[in-house]
């Protein structure tokens, strides 16, 4: 039994089938990159995992416990209530950062923790006080190298800095799996490096399990333990970086890698 098991995910928008029979496994501490051209379902897959879309079929389990199947998201189904609990397995970093503009960098990270600890206090569980919340958040801000920007508002930060704050924020509730939805696609080319470096550090120093949807092929090859190529909503290839990049068995993957190599050489 793998840590994360994704089985036979199906998703359609109206008559358009976006995901067809998508399955893969991921072990604790592994990094998975999902690659493929735009419009092949990468982002939809990540959004399904994060309960931002409902699925039409299939299931996801963590440590053998089902945390998503097609009954989740059905408003009348009691399983729907469990979404808020199951969501805690994931953290999500968005393409557009989506920081809260009215809060400082530090407050952006603190807010989710503050709200959670308030709930815990209400329920009579042990909870962190404000000082501990601030310390923990500041610690995360240090990890992404932005301690000195703690009192700056998002509009005062560069895109790369905003995304680094967003990464820290996604980690504040200590998710099992950190998901990235094209984390550098909205950035100027000269700013992608700092974000990729932070992601690399999180892997090397903290062994965080990650799922990364990305167009950065070099990065995917270097950081990943597993690579998944999605083509027309299906898993075209799934394996180690060298299996997928160097000796792809699948024709679609071959073509995709070849077109990428051509682009790189031009």
């Amino acid at each position, binding site marked *: 039994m793998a840590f994360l098991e994704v089985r036979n995910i199906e998703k359609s928008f109206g008559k358009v089938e976006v995901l067809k029979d998508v399955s893969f496994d991921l072990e604790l501490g592994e990094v998975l990159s999902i690659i493929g051209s735009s419009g092949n379902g990468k982002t939809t897959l990540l959004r399904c995992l994060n309960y931002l879309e409902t699925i039409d079929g299939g299931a996801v389990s963590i440590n053998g416990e089902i945390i998503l199947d097609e009954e989740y998201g059905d408003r009348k189904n009691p399983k729907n209530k469990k979404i*808020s609990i199951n969501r805690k397995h994931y953290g999500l970093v968005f393409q*557009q950062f*989506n920081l*809260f*503009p*009215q809060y400082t960098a530090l407050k952006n990270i603190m807010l989710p923790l503050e709200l959670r600890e308030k709930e815990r206090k209400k329920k009579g569980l042990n909870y962190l006080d404000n000082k501990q919340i601030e310390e923990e958040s500041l610690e995360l801000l240090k990890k992404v190298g932005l301690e000195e920007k703690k009192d700056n508002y998002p509009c005062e930060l560069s895109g790369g800095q905003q995304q680094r704050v967003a990464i820290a924020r*996604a980690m504040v*509730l200590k998710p099992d799996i950190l998901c990235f939805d094209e984390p550098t696609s909205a950035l100027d080319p000269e700013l992608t490096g700092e974000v990729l470096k932070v992601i690399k550090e999180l892997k090397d120093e903290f062994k965080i399990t990650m799922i990364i949807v990305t167009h950065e092929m070099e990065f995917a090859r270097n950081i990943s333990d597993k690579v998944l190529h999605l083509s027309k909503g299906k898993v075209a290839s799934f394996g180690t970086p060298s299996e997928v990049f160097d000796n792809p068995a699948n024709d679609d993957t071959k073509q995709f890698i070849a077109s990428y190599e051509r682009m790189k050489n031009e």
Partner: protein
Amino acid sequence: MFWKITSELLNGFTISIFLFTFTLLFSLPLGLLMCFCTMSKVKPLSIFMKFIVLILRGTPLMLQIFVIFYVPGLLFDFQWPMINTGWEWFDSSFSSRFIAALVAFSVNYAAYFSEIYRGGIQSIPQGQYEAAEVLGMNKRQIFFKVILLQVIKRIIPPMSNEVITLIKDTSLANVIAVTELMFVANLKLKTGLIWPIFYAGLFYFIFNGIVTIILSKVEKKLSYFKV
């Protein structure tokens, strides 16, 4: 003569300001409630509220004041309550007119505000909701902790417009003999004195200036972040 008329106009002006202040006090929250109804997923509620807003925005405020003051009495034998405040300028027979005008203004402005709120809420990018959602916030927390302040920042310019219009619209209350500023000035006009009506205009102008300054202060206060 000048001072006597000034003091009479000031009495009228106090009524105007009362009407203005209480209208804002009631219509701002009422508008939010109407906005939630309009945006509700319960279709009949949403359609009903859209219809109400359509009527309130689609007919003259003056007509609405007439209807609210006279129609309940004609149809249901309902009289707007008379309140004894003990104030000389606010006698109990007058209070029923004032309350009817206040109700008309509040409901009418709430309709306009509800549309401004709706525009503000819908202009917040979906990503803000999603980011809050994946961070474990519930609907209430998302609205109050993440969305609300961004909405307030966005709607202040169109709100300022409405607020300034409201100050001048209070003069419509004179159609049911609420003795507000224009009503008093108009009485003078009927006795052959023309200048008090321009003098009254100056009152509105100065008050509007003050309100404009306050609103731009609020706008500045929220300029520390961008949405």
